[in-house]
């Protein structure tokens, strides 16, 4: 590399220092260029960096980026779904004005859970820590979108007659809550980006769909023939 530097080769100051070195210590390789032996080494270091970063980028990075959190209560969807009459809509309902209520608040739960119905420790915990003192459960929302995004459940569920599962997966039949993987930078769930850090391939059947803007656009393109305009979601 030093050979590319004209200043060093013609420099009168540099010459006396560099010239004796091969003579004193490595006289047998006097005629070979000094960088030949280090070329492989340079390549080696390059490859160490190259491979190391590929491995850490694919394996270590996702581990570092997401923290793992448990839901405040290990909720059993399956049990509840058996007992209600109107499927998902029983708790995740549409208000009269068509807006979507989202996560049910405590008032929807207290009708049944004024007192614990079973001796399930999670239910007892729910009643003691939340129902009795009247504190809303701080559920971790796997599908929460940034505030700049407008999304209408009505348009999709009522208007386009889509099922809940088509985006949210088989959550309704789950017996335990999933670990909530929270992006340390943004605070949003890993579900939004999708479990695959490369965003390649399709999620397995029953898994929730990723919910980045391109995912919206892709589905809209397939279903409506157009990706949609900016202001449809960014109002």
């Amino acid at each position, binding site marked *: *590399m*030093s050979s590319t530097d004209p200043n060093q080769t013609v420099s009168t100051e540099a010459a006396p220092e560099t010239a004796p070195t091969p003579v004193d210590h490595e006289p047998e390789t006097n005629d070979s260029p000094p960088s030949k*032996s*280090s070329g492989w*080494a*340079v*390549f080696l*270091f*390059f*490859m*160490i*960096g*190259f*491979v*190391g*970063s*590929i491995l*850490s*980028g*694919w394996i270590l*990075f996702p581990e570092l*980026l997401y923290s793992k959190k448990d839901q405040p209560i290990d909720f059993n969807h399956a049990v509840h779904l058996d007992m209600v009459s109107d499927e998902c809509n029983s708790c995740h309902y549409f*208000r009269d*004005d068509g*807006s979507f*209520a989202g996560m049910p608040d405590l008032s929807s739960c207290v009708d049944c859970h004024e007192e614990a119905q079973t001796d399930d420790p999670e239910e007892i915990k729910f009643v003691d820590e939340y129902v009795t003192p009247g504190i809303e459960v701080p559920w971790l929302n796997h599908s929460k979108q*940034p*505030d*700049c995004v407008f999304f209408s459940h009505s348009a999709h569920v009522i208007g386009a007659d889509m099922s809940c599962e088509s985006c949210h997966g088989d959550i309704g039949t789950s017996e335990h809550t999933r670990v909530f993987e929270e*992006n340390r*930078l*943004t*605070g*949003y769930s890993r579900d939004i*980006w999708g479990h695959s*850090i*490369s*965003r390649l391939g399709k999620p397995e059947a029953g898994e929730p769909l990723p919910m980045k803007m391109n995912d919206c656009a892709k589905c809209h393109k397939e279903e409506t023939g157009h990706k949609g305009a900016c202001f449809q979601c960014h109002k």
Partner: protein
Amino acid sequence: MKIDRRSFLTYGTALVLGGAAGSMLTPAPWKLTDDVAIWTQNWPWTPVPEDGEITYKQSVCTLCPGGCGINVRLVNGRPIKIEGSKDHPANKGSLCPMGISGLQYLYGPSRVTSPLKREGKRGEGKWKKVSWEEALTAVAKKLAELRENGRPQSVACITGSDRGTIPNLIGRFLTAYGSPNYIRSANAQDAIEQAIYLAQGKQGTPGFDIEKADFILSFGSGLLDGWGSPGRMFNLYGNQKPAKKIIQIEPRLSDTAAKATQWIGINPGTEGALALGIAHVIIKESLYDRNFVENYAFGFDDWTDDNGKAHDGFAKMAKKFAPEKVSRITGIPKAEIVSLARAFARASKPIALNGRGHGSVPGSIDESLAVQSLNALVGNINKPGGISAMPDSNYAKWPEVNIDEIASKGMQQPRIDGAGSEQFPNTRFLLNRLPEIINSAQGESPIQALMVTDANPLYTLPDTAATKKAFDRIPFIVSFSPYMDETASHADYILPNHSYLERLQDVPTSTGISLQVTGLAKPVVKPLYDTKHVGDSFIHMAKALGGFIENAFPWDDYEAFLKETLNDQWRKFKRKGVIEIEHNLPEPLAYTFNTVSGKFEFYPTARNSATQKENSALPSYTPVPIEGDVQRFKLVLIPYDSIRLASGYMANAPFMTKTVDDTVLKNQIGLLEINPATAKELSLKEGDTAILTTPKGKATVKIHLYEGIMPGIIAMPRGLGHTAYSEYLADKGTNFNELIGPIEDPTSGLDMAWGIRAKLTRA
């Protein structure tokens, strides 16, 4: 392999480059770029609106007398948006910029958050928070003291309206207390109301059925600039049929003029002469409604009174206003006047309106009478598409007030403002005369205690300096304003009312609308601060004063009072929010007028003719005197109104100020409109800074060249130049009222000033 300093750098560089190249083949950089972008949007100090259940609450806007219905959108019970209510007959869904930005009055920093007692000098801004008990007791004690000294009449109360239960409750308080000095702020309705009263003998709110009219002749009314009920006027423009003609007569190309069928520039202040000129042509060419004039009108022809004295009729007066003469006065070509008169008279449903701009200044009675005479000539009184006096809703029936001897003596004193006196028999309130009366009083001020609610006289009264001087002479001032406005900041006590979205009140018929509608303003949110309904404050003070005053208020609070007032209608009212009384117009062939003659009086016999020229009560044209020496002040300054600037007692919401063009306000300095030709004479250019001087005051302005203003005339907007409220409103532009003084109308005593002489010098 030996690693020295140089090869270390070489290998290190190789490692880093390898790492960088490798990372490009991983998702990390792309994912991180995306995450960082999202991270920047979620910084904790970025405000994020709360999510939650959306509800709507119906109410009525009370920010201006327009009385539009509003629909307030709430998230989790927090008001977040105001929309026009489709169910209200006045505005049918439309709303003005002020109504839309109303939430800024609720949440804004100019709110008074608790009762305050002044510390330090008046207007210094030093206040001490006091409890409601302490504040109300202090005010009641002062009032009791004045009564004990036998001077209940030295207490005055200034309000924004005199209709509805709140003003009636305050009026009742003053009656029981013993003061005749209940004074309501003035506006153009006063002059029109009085003209209608003089001609028709009916006391009521003028109703203009402009929706059904097909030819609207507007003498300077800012139909699209905030005149009447703005929501209603937007609908008029939005839904107008192509056949509808709007003729706008004013000296300046306003937004209303720009959107009119025709704009006719006129010398300012000469509108009355034009109305008489039009009458002249209509009479001369026999285009008037013969049936109405011959059968239902009085004073059209010459007449003789009971004493045998001969009087001229309206036709003779109009004869003096031939188009040539009117053309000289108004500056409008003679042919234009003739064709305008013909078009007006031949239209199937013509209507003539007056009241300049927003209608904040009453104007001359002569002018209002002349315009009403035009309506009478085409016979559109009490007809669809015409004008009528809307009777006030008489739902309010309360037990009679019994008063004690002190109150009785006080009530027998003449009103301080001279309203209802021999000089001004038909005027009910004359706030504009108050400063002069106080300032010219010998010894102490005739007003010893002043209470102000829903009014801001220190901003809205002409001649701010004189008003301030008068207020300084009043020893005790109480403001009930929810906002730190100019008057509140000069008070001794502030007893803050709830803001308009937090209080209950009935809202009588909206200005100018020809329907008899009463709305109910319901609180859409619980009071955010330690405020009290002004009705409750007065009931509390009445109880503290005891005796007959206490007995006049058998109600626990304002709500109980309102409930009893509305009686069996309360529940319907509360549910619907609006009571609409079907207003049946009298049959055109059964015109009934309550005048002496029982007819529509072209010659208004109830008018005090002693102050008029030739002792004639007929509407005439006498130029309204304009203050200032012609030699010293070569220009004429007129105000203009805009829908984007609130000029009344409620200041602009900051959102509204944001919509104002930089040809109106720039870098805190107001712009003055001047015709390019006039500017050239004064060697002024666009954007120049100049000093504007009038006989009343001085202001720094910037020059804005505008072809839409007549040469020699300069114009600036009302509604700027606040000195109080908050940093978002104060010190922006100039308050027009600082530059003009009131001019008393000889008939009504109301302010009729339309402009003032002025001069401009380069700064």
